[in-house]
């Protein structure tokens, strides 16, 4: 099994090279074709038109697009993703500083989405043919139709403003130190032995993670229910019934395992979407992640930073898909034989 997984990972990594090249080239070209002037954005308001022209030349914006791309690619291969126009800092360094917070948020949100999705899917399936099925169905559609930023605002209003149960700005309460070890605050606070920071970080993470999780759970719910419907048509379910197994046992021990495979694939795809969904949620909750950084970069036409963040999103999605496919191999013996 390990060999099969390793083979798959190696194959995926090799395939990732042309994908990354294509994505980086597309990103580069699209960003350069936008009708914005990064040279003007990088100079102060008292710069003259002549100084802006000089800056354009200095930034290489007067060179042909393919040449500009090759220069960027060569620098990127040497670990230099350029400097942020607005922040005048290394774009790669900014991404590295903010990525762990976003991964932490996305991972917590995915865990919530998975729990709600699995639980909801099982409930939806159990309610099949019953009086409450249309109600539950409608509820899942309503959940599906609310985007993550709206959940963000609703939760903020209810739990932050009305009930005042939970904080909704930043990562920890004012006055608490931020241990910097790995960049993952939950882990760092534990490594530093600061349970107060850990608790505060958990409190601050609840609302944004739930907002994201709630937005992505209905799809998992509905796919799981649909997969369970398919699985229940299989002969082995009928045989299990004939063996006298309880419906609960059949559902949890037999049907769920097989129905979870397509759900897992979907969850992998969803995680990629969820990761990019952090953008607005991070802004709403003043969460210092990469999404927040991206919103600023777009606002400032900060092309080097947009390019670096865009490429990072692509790498993360590729890694997630590889991880999910590997898990698929672990869970599905048929794939190992092949």
């Amino acid at each position: 099994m390990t060999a099969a997984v390793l083979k798959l990972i190696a194959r995926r990594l090799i395939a990732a090279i042309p994908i990354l090249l294509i994505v980086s080239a597309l990103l580069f070209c699209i960003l350069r074709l936008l009708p914005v002037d990064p040279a003007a954005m990088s100079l102060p308001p008292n710069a003259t038109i002549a100084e802006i022209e000089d800056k354009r030349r200095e930034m290489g914006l007067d060179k042909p697009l393919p040449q500009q791309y090759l220069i960027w690619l060569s620098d990127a291969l040497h670990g230099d993703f350029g400097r942020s126009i607005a922040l005048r800092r290394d774009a790669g360094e900014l991404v590295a500083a903010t990525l762990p917070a976003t991964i932490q948020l996305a991972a917590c949100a995915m865990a919530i989405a998975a729990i709600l999705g699995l639980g909801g899917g099982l409930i939806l399936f159990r309610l099949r043919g019953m009086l409450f099925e249309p109600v539950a169905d409608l509820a899942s559609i309503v959940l599906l139709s609310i985007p993550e930023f709206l959940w963000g605002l609703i939760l903020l209003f209810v739990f932050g403003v009305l009930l005042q149960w939970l904080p909704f700005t930043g990562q920890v309460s004012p006055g608490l130190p931020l241990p910097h070890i790995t960049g993952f605050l939950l882990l760092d606070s534990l490594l530093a032995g600061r349970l107060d920071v850990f608790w505060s970080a958990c409190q601050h993470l609840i609302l944004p993670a739930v907002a994201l999780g709630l937005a992505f759970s209905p799809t998992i719910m509905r796919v799981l229910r649909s997969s369970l419907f398919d699985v229940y048509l299989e002969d082995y379910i009928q045989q299990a019934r004939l063996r006298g197994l309880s419906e609960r046992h059949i559902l949890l021990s037999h049907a769920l395992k097989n129905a979870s495979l397509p759900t897992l694939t979907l969850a992998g795809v969803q995680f990629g979407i969820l990761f990019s969904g952090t953008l607005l949620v991070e802004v709403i909750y003043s969460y210092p992640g990469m999404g927040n950084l991206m919103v600023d970069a777009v606002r400032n036409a900060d092309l080097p930073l947009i390019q670096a963040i865009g490429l990072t999103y692509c790498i993360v999605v590729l890694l997630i898909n590889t991880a999910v496919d590997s898990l698929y191999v672990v869970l599905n013996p048929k794939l190992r034989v092949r």
Partner: protein
Amino acid sequence: MASKLKRRSFLQLAAGAAAGMSAPFTRARAATTDAATIGWPNDVPSWDPNQRFTPDAQPIFKAVFDQPLDQDPQLKLIPHLIKSWSLAPDALSMAVELRDDVTFHNGDKMTTEDFRYTFFERIKAGLKLDTANSWKKVDDIVIESPVKATMKFNAPAPTAPQWMAFLGSYMVPKKYIESGGLDNFLKNPVGTGPYKLAEYELNSRIVLERYDGYWGPKPKIAHVTIEIIKDPSARVAAIQSGQTDFTINVPVREAERFQKEPGLSAELDPITRVILIQMRADLAFADRNVRLAAHHAIDKAALSKAFYAGAAVPLSVLATPGTPGYLTDFSFKYDPALAKALLAKSNFSTSNPVKIGFATTNGQFPSDYDIARAIVQMWKQVGIEADLQVIEYAKYFELNRGNKLPETTLYSWDNATGDPEIFSGYQLNPKMPFSPWKDEDIGNRVLALFGVADYDKRIAGYRDLERYAVENGATVPLLQSVVTIVRKKNLAYTKYANGWVLPQTLRWS
């Protein structure tokens, strides 16, 4: 028995957890009169205050760093790190005398070496600093003593004193940066300001601690936390829930609502920011009649009432009340009948409207798109048909560079100094990137004023220019913009005419 105990323990734990969850979350620092939390819309671009000109970051920089000169709440230039200054009659040099009791947060004494380093050496070293543009005329800074120096300019710099209190002009420590390196300075900035930076997290939080060695009046509040909350709705929620004590730039309707909230105080303060329509001198606007008709057709008071609760002051010139360039004896009237008559002279009418383009941003400043839509309707009433085009702010420069902006563009221009050069001088200077107006007559007048050294003559020149520009339809000033401020009623602050909210002026009552 054991099982029962376990169940009981479990229930107790669950009840405790539920009670904990239902209680308001605990704050690490209890609310005291020694601490305050501000909800701020933007982070600083970097902790090198000379690096980027970001108006929203200036109040934060002013807490950690000091400027050589300062402005009082009415924007009058006042001594600060510089005790006295003297601009030569030809504006080719400026002698300054610094205070001798100023120390940086690391204990180093501030001297003219730091002054020379900040305003000359760093720029000549080729560092990517925005101040390189404001101080590009500096040829040298001659040090005469630890407190006395003379700035030498290679061209007249009549606004040098104003720039000493403007964007990016903050004193930085030469010795500390040179010995520790720029990266160390960016991570652990050291200034001479009333607060030290205690903690910083990008796009999230800035924690300031009072600097006890500060040379000036000590801040009343020892700990100030600035929460970076970019979303206006989240800023509203934060002040309403008590997670912040003070916030700015909330939507006008929310500010009006907060005026009725007990415990909170909300204000709409007019500031030195002008909302205007930038004009082109060609295309359909080559005709002066059409340009003036477009101006006469706009009911500015109605715009103020509709979008700024009447707090935004209608303007007739490109300057705000109280600033040197403002004209109290000049007003450009709202007169749709006159607008129609002017258009009729050029053979246009409501049945044969003149067609123009009108660019606007959506969300760059409060109600920008809605104001533009209202203006389009006002123009329609007199015979101007405007095609409204929404552009991104970043796109503005590219369009202007390529001479592709339409006849009119709705714009907002901020000028914390209040100096007319940075109002009409920048907005009508054909060599600057903010002026779609390319016309030799007005352009030459502006360029000439950039070289006038005498303050009174310079101001008089700009006052004439402002009237002339409006009378010729070169610009349409609309409103003096407002900043919305919401705060706890017992948290006072000093109001500045340019909208600065300085943490060092906060005080609990």
